[in-house]
């Protein structure tokens, strides 16, 4: 097949356009909700638009966005990774304790170590759920416990403190470049690279294929086990990265770091349009979902709405998102079917 022909402008009929529109509307919908939420909050409390407040918002969202990207890769293949928060804790403590004990270690080496640890955890999850034949829900529920337990054993009650961390490292967590927090630059880079890879590379497309119809993927010669394993390793690596960034951001790390994040991350992906049974969704959506959830939290805090509403709001939003997805999905499918039927008749 030729590889160098220039892309031709699309000749699309309404069916294709309709489907594409819906996909885009899905992400536009979140952007819309974000803007609306932001504007309303700013009107009620102008301090929300302060540089500090915005910076906090972005910082909070960044770690979740990175985790949500990894989670998306896994969910798209009809799997799930509940263990990300425990992996984050391991990697965060690893990076923190290494740099505390050996202040001379270069910062890049901390990233290599943290990501490496995440990849090892992801490999463990992936091997068990592909070659071991254990459902990923069970494997990662198990490692959610086991990795967290290992973190407790390892820290043995100790914690890493900000004072022992070098400034160069801490600056990563709190500094900014051209007004954008460094942490968010990491997140944006991760989202863009992952989004590009999922869209423009064979392996990325095959992840969707596996989640959309596993049997068809097998018949099409897709090496499902290997790719699912890859998704788990990448998800682990990103959790590892998030762990290093967690340490840089908060300075204080103990074995409870990130506890409970896993459900927020999955919620972010689902709110962002990633179908829990695979085949559908983008990392952009998931990252936007993470941003939306964080914004809700921040705006409720700044509006002094009792912080107690926060979790209920996130839960309600998540349910609203899946109900809407379902309604739109049913409509779209029947629209596409009618179009197909009319054309044949």
């Amino acid at each position: 097949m030729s590889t160098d022909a220039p892309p031709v402008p699309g000749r699309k009929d309404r069916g294709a356009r309709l489907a594409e529109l819906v996909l885009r509307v899905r992400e536009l919908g979140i952007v819309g909700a974000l803007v609306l939420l932001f504007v309303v909050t700013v009107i009620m409390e102008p301090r929300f638009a302060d540089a500090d407040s915005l910076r906090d918002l972005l910082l909070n969202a960044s770690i979740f966005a990175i985790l949500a990207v990894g989670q998306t890769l896994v969910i798209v293949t009809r799997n799930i990774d509940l263990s990300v928060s425990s992996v984050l804790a391991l990697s965060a403590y690893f990076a923190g304790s290494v740099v505390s004990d050996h202040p001379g270690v270069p910062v890049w080496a901390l990233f290599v170590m943290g990501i490496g640890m995440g990849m090892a955890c992801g490999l463990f999850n992936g091997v068990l759920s592909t070659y071991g034949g254990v459902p990923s829900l069970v494997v990662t529920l198990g490692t959610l416990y086991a990795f967290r337990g290992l973190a407790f054993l390892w820290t043995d009650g100790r914690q890493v403190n900000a004072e022992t961390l070098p400034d160069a490292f801490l600056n990563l967590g709190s500094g900014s470049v051209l007004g954008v927090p460094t942490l968010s630059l990491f997140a944006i880079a991760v989202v863009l690279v992952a989004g590009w890879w999922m869209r423009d590379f064979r392996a990325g497309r095959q992840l969707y294929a596996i989640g959309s119809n596993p049997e068809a993927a097998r018949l099409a010669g897709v090496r499902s086990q290997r790719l699912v394993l890859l998704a788990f390793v990448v998800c682990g690596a990103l959790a590892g990265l998030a762990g290093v960034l967690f340490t840089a951001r908060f300075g204080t790390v103990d074995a409870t770091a990130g506890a409970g994040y896993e459900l927020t991350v999955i919620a972010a992906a689902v709110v962002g349009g990633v179908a829990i049974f695979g085949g559908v969704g983008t990392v952009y959506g998931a990252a936007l979902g993470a941003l939306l959830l964080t914004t809700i939290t921040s705006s409720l805090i700044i509006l002094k709405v009792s912080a107690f509403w926060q979790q209920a709001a996130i839960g309600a939003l998540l349910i609203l998102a899946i109900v809407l997805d379902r309604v739109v999905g049913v409509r779209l499918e029947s629209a596409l079917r009618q179009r197909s039927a009319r054309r044949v008749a």
Partner: protein
Amino acid sequence: MTEDATLTVPILELDHAAKSYGAVRALREGTLALCAGEVRALVGENGAGKSTLVKLLAGVERLDAGVMRVDGEDVDFHSPAAARAAGIAVIYQEPTLFPDLSVAENIAMGRHPLRAGRRIDRGVMRRDAQALLDQLGVRLNASRPVRGLSIADQQIVEIAKALSFEARVLIMDEPTAALSGPEVERLFTVVRALQQRGAAVLFISHRLEEVFSICDTATVMRDGAVVHDARIADMTPDDMVRRMVGRDLGALFPKEDTTVGEPVLVAHRLTRENVFTDISFTLHSGEIVALAGLVGAGRSEVARAVFGIDRLDAGHVEVEGRRLPNGRPAAAMAAGIGLVPEDRRQQGLVMDLSITRNVTLTVLRRLSRLGLMRRGSERRVAAEWAERLQLRHHTLDGPVRFLSGGNQQKVVLAKWLARTPKVLMVDEPTRGIDVGTKAEVHRLLSRLAAEGLAVLMVSSELPEVLGMADRVLVMHEGRLTAELSRDEADEETVMRAATGQTHEAAA
């Protein structure tokens, strides 16, 4: 049988292949050769082992015994990818596509055209796919998602997919089953073009007229073995059918004469949009009514709707004068209807549960007191029916998964007969069942009718329809096209109605 003694080495060859699933020997003896430029028919009744043979060639299953060769060299396909790498493309009965992805991407999956940096070239991917679809002469947009496509369109996508990697061997497992007349013609044009390019085609179909119009050679299978291999020019349709069936028709269809009783079930203008339209019929106690037609004519769907699995858009069903509520299987059962569904493994049985549990699934209420099951009665009912239907089994507590197809079907029948229904609908009652059990099932249905049961039998097997039915209803593209008495019904009248010819003649 005579092997083709040509000097050319076959592209694909299967030699004494065998395959079993648990206790079921699906393929006992598979020998077959495909040469360049040859269109070979693979024919046989349902359950003769054709699908198993296809799975071996496609690399979906591995041989238990025997040899497979490509270009004369031994091969062992351990995955579908290996088969595809050898140039073998399979188009399955059931399209296996990715509903969430675009048509173009479905065609290109795993072999996306690339540009610099190993990135996918979407433009080329879309254009290549569109070119293939245009070449097939279909108006189908390559950019739209597969979700929502009709089965016929999905089939076209499958064919385009096979064409896209210029397969040397094309295996088509009943590709025409869901296609309309013009679509079949279009497909044949493509098949002939492929043939001229030197590809080998293995064509599986139940429509003999298609086989005779497009194939050069034929392989006939029966009961898991290849029984005949010859040039189409040397065969007649009758000859082929005889080799497929391989037995005396009379012994197989022990239809007892019955006296037809009162009407039990009346279907009144049943309609389900885009599936079937305006279907009316009456079932009387003591008669076997066959619902005949081609695959995809909407017969199973009618049975499902009568039973309440699918909702009717219009029309209604009456049982003994009482109207059934729409879309409620439990109500249909309470009124005395039973349905032995088409897909035994998926719909008829819970494969992981024991024989006892499966048989009693429909009579739980009767076997319980205050909601608690009476284990003794459970076993008694299961044992009684196992005995009456001569079920061959080790233990009633073993999962039905380990039974042969015929015995599994007996379990399904048992679970419905345990309710002593007034109307029994059986959908392809003998599909995938060995000859001996087949006759048993026929004898059973016949006896039940004699005892006053009304039977509606959906069947694609013409001999079964003609041998068993007191009356034959024929469907074509969602409509009833003929109602034939036992005397009127023969191969010709039924086939004419099933292909819609009576309809056109009348119009």
